[in-house]
């Protein structure tokens, strides 16, 4: 049972939570502005592919990150065009993007690198390395604090720190800036924004683009931080778990972080439970653990955390009345 809380598990909890956190925050921007986005998965996957490919070709993780974010933003703009300008169905557009990316990434990967849809193995400057925070060595032996600091906080890739700093930043943007006020308003009652003399379209596009940026970072972290290269279907449903985390967190930034950590923890435990025998239960199938985030979301939403009310104008294209 020690594997439920040892350093390794907590450490990988942070790492596995990072893509969930980034994607859930991405969804938060988009959905708070009234554009539902189930293409988090696709954008992340696209970001991971572009990051893996560009990092190999240019021998730089940063160029990889830039490529991943760029592709993800392009996909976000496509979703934005379909949902905002063309007033299409947001779910259909999201599903389409997920399918297109899943297919195209493998097609291009195969034709460029000939590795069956994977990108070549990355190493050295092509990946984001772990950063050792100052003083981590010195503090390593201090009980608890040192354990936390040098064992968990230190030694993560830079994108991990970016992801967790994005939480207070998102809170601040949402509740303390003009941009955030307008973004929230446009997701609740776009007509109020329109009559206040503000462009609904522009406010929504900006939110959707931020969503693209964050998904791109999430994808780049998958390919350049967590793994060493892009692998077919490497997001493995993380975009949907992120959506579950977003709903679970009731579209609130700090809650999103805790939800992502919880789901990341379940994933970390799931990996370590493979082949292990639990008291009373026996060996638990990995798939059961993998399903836990979804089961948890459904069960908790069904009554334990109260109603999760999405932004009121979410999913509805804005049309002036008549």
């Amino acid at each position: 049972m020690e594997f439920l809380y040892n350093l390794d598990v907590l450490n990988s909890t942070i790492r596995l939570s990072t893509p969930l956190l980034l994607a859930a925050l991405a969804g938060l921007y988009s959905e708070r502005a009234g554009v539902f986005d189930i293409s988090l998965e696709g954008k992340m996957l696209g970001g991971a592919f572009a990051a893996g490919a560009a990092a190999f070709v240019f021998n730089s993780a940063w160029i990889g990150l830039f490529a991943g974010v760029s592709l993800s933003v392009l996909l976000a703009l496509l979703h934005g065009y379909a949902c905002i300008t063309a007033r299409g169905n947001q779910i259909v557009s999201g599903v389409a993007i997920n399918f297109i990316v899943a297919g195209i990434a493998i097609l291009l990967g195969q034709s460029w690198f000939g590795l069956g849809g994977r990108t070549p193995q990355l190493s050295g400057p092509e990946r984001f390395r772990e950063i050792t925070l100052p003083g981590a060595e010195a503090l390593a032996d201090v009980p608890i604090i040192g354990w936390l600091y040098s064992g968990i906080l230190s030694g993560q890739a830079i994108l991990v720190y970016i992801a967790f700093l994005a939480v207070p930043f998102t809170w601040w943007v949402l509740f303390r800036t003009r941009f955030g006020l307008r973004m929230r308003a446009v997701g609740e009652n776009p007509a109020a924004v329109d009559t206040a003399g503000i462009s609904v379209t522009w406010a929504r596009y900006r939110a959707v683009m931020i969503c693209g940026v964050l998904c791109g970072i999430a994808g780049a972290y998958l390919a350049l931080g967590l793994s060493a290269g892009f692998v077919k279907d490497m997001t493995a449903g993380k975009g949907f778990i992120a959506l579950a985390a977003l709903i679970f967190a009731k579209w609130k930034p700090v809650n999103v972080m805790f939800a992502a950590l919880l789901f990341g923890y379940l994933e970390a435990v799931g990996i370590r439970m493979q082949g292990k025998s639990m008291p009373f239960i026996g060996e638990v199938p990995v798939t059961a653990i993998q399903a836990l985030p979804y089961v948890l979301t459904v069960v908790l939403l069904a009554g334990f955390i109260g109603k999760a009310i999405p932004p009121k104008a979410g999913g509805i294209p804005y049309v002036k009345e008549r």
Partner: protein
Amino acid sequence: MAKQSSSSPPAIKLSGISKSFGPVQANKDIDLVVEKGSIHGIIGENGAGKSTLMSILYGFYHADSGTIAINGKEMKIPDSQAAIAAGIGMVHQHFMLVDNFTVLENVILGAEGGAILNRGIAKAKTELQRLEDEYSLDVDIDTLIEELPVGLQQRVEILKALFRNADILILDEPTGVLTPAEADHLFRIFRQLRDEGKTIILITHKLREIMAITDSVSVMRRGEMVATRKTSETSVEELAELMVGRRVLLRVDKGEANPGEDKLVVENLTVKDERGVVMVDDVSFSVKAGEIVGIAGVAGNGQSELMAAISGIMRAETGRVLLDGKPIHVTGHADPALLRQRGMAHVPEDRHHMGLVLPFSEKENSILGYQNDETYTSGQFLQMAAIDADARAKIKQYDIRPPNPDLKASSFSGGNQQKIVLSREMERDPVVLLVGQPTRGVDVGAIEFIHKRIIEMRDAGKAVLLVSVELDEIRSLADRTLVMFAGKIVGERGPEASEGELGLLMAGVTDNDGAEARQ
């Protein structure tokens, strides 16, 4: 009255404004001049083009042709931002507020005063306090909109406009949601604003308001501006005729009531809402065949809950209700469908939420609640031909326009929607007819028709229970009037009761209070 010298240019001058939505011409070559520092009314039936015209002025829609001049300066108004910059503020009929924002957040939305909110908020708070004090528009700025009653939400809308330094204030049907006292308060604010030189445009279809508050009035009919009058030189009758295009009977013609035996008996009924607050408090009364009993009162004094309990929608705590001599299980599971079979027809107060399914077609709506009746159904299948024929007959009889049973209910105007509900409920030959707010949001021509039908039901021997917040309506229809205040019936009056007398009762001044005051 603060009259400006005639030399100053008008606040608004519209010339030749036209606007079409597809094949529908909403505005046809409209000219309008509104003097600075005046209250100008625009009246017309629903769908006459008033709101469209004002939305053009506010930059929400673009006119196909025509020019707009504000304070003598011709200008283009491509969007609401330009309108706000030109000093125009608008309070829409459906409030443009974000429900889960605070009052303050709603007011500053679009006028935040900088990219970081903190700086703007401090300033906004001072300014809002000043406006609230100056115009007695008290409202707590840190409350969420969804927690405010509609009357206060409207104040927020007015504050929004004033906060943006609006000189010209357009209000679309502002009193539709207000109690008489709130409406009076609003009118006092209008006068104060006018006396400060601001210009107010009031869109309404209530003739009494036009006569009470405006300096001049323009009448629209079917997209055209048919007349502009000084309010002091016109009359309710003339305006009504201009609006509808024919003479309208404003007083209802009705003969003596011929009450028979009790058809609806309510005894000691008590109803609590979901919060556990007593909304109907030990109420007893009866309605006889062939009479109309009106329940007057300011909205929210328990009338809605009373109707809901009698019609089986809400469960009562205690009490007994008899329909045609037989009890209704009001404290248990009274089944509205069963009550319909037993002869209780119900025209609900809120036709959009309870009377109609808006995305359904007219004919589907015309059988709601009666869909299991064998006229419309055989086995599991709807008899579409019979339903269609039935709907067409009702459309003809009730003059529902447009006469198309396949059109969605949401495409009909308020008056015609109400006629759909009325035709459904009245044509079933009920024993008891419950009618809630029959003419809310309904235009003058349709009001006349609806009132006539209600009286015909009475004359046909039905027991009619009428709930309305429009005192005029109660006074012209009811044979007996019960006044509800804080869940209790505080008085009963005959048809001769004066408006003042009923108004006092509605404010909770009961007979006993009056007797004490006289002593």
